[in-house]
């Protein structure tokens, strides 16, 4: 009897112990396994130009958000030059991050990403309408899909040397492109400081050339997405750049990369550059004396309008193959809601696409303790009104993206400026290239 009882208890105990070990055991024995059940959110974004932003985002904001939402958030930062290749490899492998930040509109990935309409609707419900620039950089009117979500963008103001422009009778800097040409010519003659508008195969040139084109009334496409590059307005813009180069610049602008104008400006070598506020922020840290000489001004007036471009367009996408799509959407909504923190952490580098998320923006930028004078960045207070998207007056579609990334317009302007081709020849060559690109993407149904 004793033996039987012992055997029964023993069997039951064994089964119970087995079940317990199988069910609860791993959580006790390997605590990490229990934590693994927690949701995860993987984010990939660039190494920000302003390092304190990454400090705040990686170590503070995402940690706090993760704790509140019971999610393990991991952030991977890579250099901006590696974004394209990384995105391509994630799509190819159909595996990667839940949230992927492009620094430009990525319409070619439309088929691979989830529609962000609900994210826009939710953020709009909370914070009001986004600016036109944000929508035109993330929406495809042809397919009626939001291929990305843009919480912010970086303005592209004019950086100029106040001391040099004062010496040639323009103490407030240039107000128009004609001022840049006339003032730049005098400065080069008197002080040997050329104008620093790039003519190379890099992003700053791409932005600057479009800024000139748009202010001259030219553009790659019209509001409906029809190619209109070959126009008399484009010809005027190209002729202007040719004259600007010949009168105010040197061949070094043909060799520049995206950081060359920063270095040249801080080294005191050039009189004007179009760039984000990274020039002035770097100068404040590395060369405070030069920082006092570099001032900012709004978009320059051309024959048709005063308009500027975004310098960096922050566009988050969520891959269809992402493991935590809902978490990624919630993160975006919350991040945009808290964008004021990002604005301050990034030292005003990124401006909101939803203006109401930073209600005291004007006050903040009007009094910056690091700036000299303290209201240096005040010129950006109405940037939401004069900054526009690549592809203006239309949307940033796949054709515009390929034209931008294969530097078609950069080469067009550079060839004409250097004399390698006449303005007419350069435009014709670019127009042929653009026609091919537009036809290709139209055939794919994305334009």
């Amino acid at each position, binding site marked *: 009897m004793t033996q039987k009882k012992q055997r029964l208890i023993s069997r039951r105990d064994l089964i119970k112990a087995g079940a317990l070990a199988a069910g609860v055991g791993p959580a006790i024995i390997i605590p990490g396994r229990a934590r693994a059940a927690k949701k995860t959110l993987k984010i990939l974004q660039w190494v920000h130009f302003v390092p304190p932003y990454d400090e705040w985002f990686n170590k503070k904001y995402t940690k706090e958000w993760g704790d509140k939402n019971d999610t393990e958030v991991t952030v991977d930062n890579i250099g901006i030059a590696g974004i394209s290749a990384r995105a391509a490899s994630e799509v190819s492998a159909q595996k990667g991050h839940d949230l992927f930040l492009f620094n430009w509109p990525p319409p070619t990935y*439309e088929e691979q990403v989830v529609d962000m309409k609900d994210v826009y609707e939710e953020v709009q419900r909370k914070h009001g309408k986004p600016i036109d620039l944000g929508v035109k950089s993330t929406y495809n009117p042809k397919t009626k899909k939001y291929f990305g979500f843009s919480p912010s963008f970086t303005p592209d103001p004019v950086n100029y040397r106040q001391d040099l422009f004062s010496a040639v009778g323009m103490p407030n800097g240039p107000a128009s492109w004609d001022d840049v040409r006339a003032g730049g010519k005098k400065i080069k003659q008197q002080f040997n400081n050329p104008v620093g508008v790039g003519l190379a195969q890099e992003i700053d040139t791409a932005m600057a050339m479009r800024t000139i084109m748009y202010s001259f009334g030219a553009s790659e496409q019209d509001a409906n997405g029809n190619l209109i590059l070959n126009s008399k307005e484009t010809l005027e813009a190209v002729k202007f750049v040719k004259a600007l180069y010949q009168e105010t610049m*040197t061949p070094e602008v043909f060799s520049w990369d995206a950081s060359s104008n920063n270095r040249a400006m801080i080294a005191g070598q050039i009189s004007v550059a179009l760039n984000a506020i990274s020039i002035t922020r770097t100068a404040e840290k590395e060369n405070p004396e030069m920082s006092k000489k570099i001032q900012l001004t709004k978009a320059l007036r051309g024959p048709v309008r005063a308009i500027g471009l975004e310098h960096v367009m922050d566009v988050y996408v969520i891959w269809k193959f992402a493991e935590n799509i809902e978490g990624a959407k919630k993160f975006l909504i919350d991040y945009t809601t808290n964008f004021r923190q990002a604005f301050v952490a990034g030292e005003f580098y990124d401006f909101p696409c939803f203006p109401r998320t930073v209600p005291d923006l004007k006050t903040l930028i009007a009094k910056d303790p690091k700036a000299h004078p303290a209201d240096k960045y005040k010129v950006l207070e109405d940037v939401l009104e004069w900054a526009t998207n690549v592809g203006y007056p239309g949307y940033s579609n796949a054709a515009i993206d390929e034209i931008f990334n294969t530097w078609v317009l950069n080469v067009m302007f*550079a060839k004409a400026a250097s004399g390698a081709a006449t303005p007419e020849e350069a435009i014709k060559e670019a127009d042929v290239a653009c026609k091919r690109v537009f036809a290709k993407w139209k055939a794919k149904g994305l334009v």
Partner: protein
Amino acid sequence: MEAVKGEARVLLGAPATRFSYIRDREEWLGPLMLGPAILYIVLVVGFPFFLALYYSVSDITLGSRSLGFVGLKNFTGVIGTTKFQTALKNTFVFAILSQLLVLVLGNVLALALQKDFRGKWLVRLLILLPWVAPISLGTIGWLWIVDSIYSVINWTLRAVGIFGPTFWPIWLGVPHLAMGTVIAVHVWRLLPLATVILLAGLSSIPKDIHDAAQVDGASFWRHYFQVTLPLLLPVAVVALLFGLVFAFTDMTVIYVLTRGGPYDTTQVLASLAFFTGVAGGDLAEGAAISLFLFPLLLAAAIGFLRIARRSEVV
């Protein structure tokens, strides 16, 4: 007999296992040893190559997973473009000039390193360094050396009085200087490999042939062109083949230094393929551009290897 074999195995310290059967038979051991290498080539070279071949006749983009067959449309479409024709011309200029320089300089270095002198090991180490260092890292160093503002070359030559106060060449901003610079950096990169290959070739020439030429009173040039070079030819052809394939297919130097600029004057097919396929999103056209020279390179490789085989001294 079996007992003897077993005893021998024990004596040799190799236990008799089933693997011994394979180990002792060349028809099994050979393929087994080659297996990993073949697997590596298939996975790392073969698979991407056939994938690129497939992409080049499709309409794939970066953002689409579906592949529609379009035949040779990508090839015919791109051939007529100015960008492609410029890149094709630049590719030949870049590859041929850089390989001519690599061959000449590699020969000079190999001949010099064949002699015994003090510090030879240090010279060999220094020559090998560019090959050992990651190419992108080395090229970034060059980017600073030829930078338009901080060029070390310009500052030094100005400091020693060779450049006047107003002379400041923009190495990457003027088309012929930019092409010259990317060729120079590419030569710097490939020279160690060519030198090592040629040095191995020189070392394999029997010394008595050199002695005989010396006894016959052959001058340096006659000795070199009529004795050394013909014997070196099989190895030199292999070095040239490696160099040409590298020059025709690599884009690192150009991508880091010029990104094809100024205004496409240093754009080569490899970099154009990258910008079109990865940056521009048209993966199919990018693949077509990258494969354009494949038939030519294949024919060249077969031709070079035949020359090398024929000129081998038996």
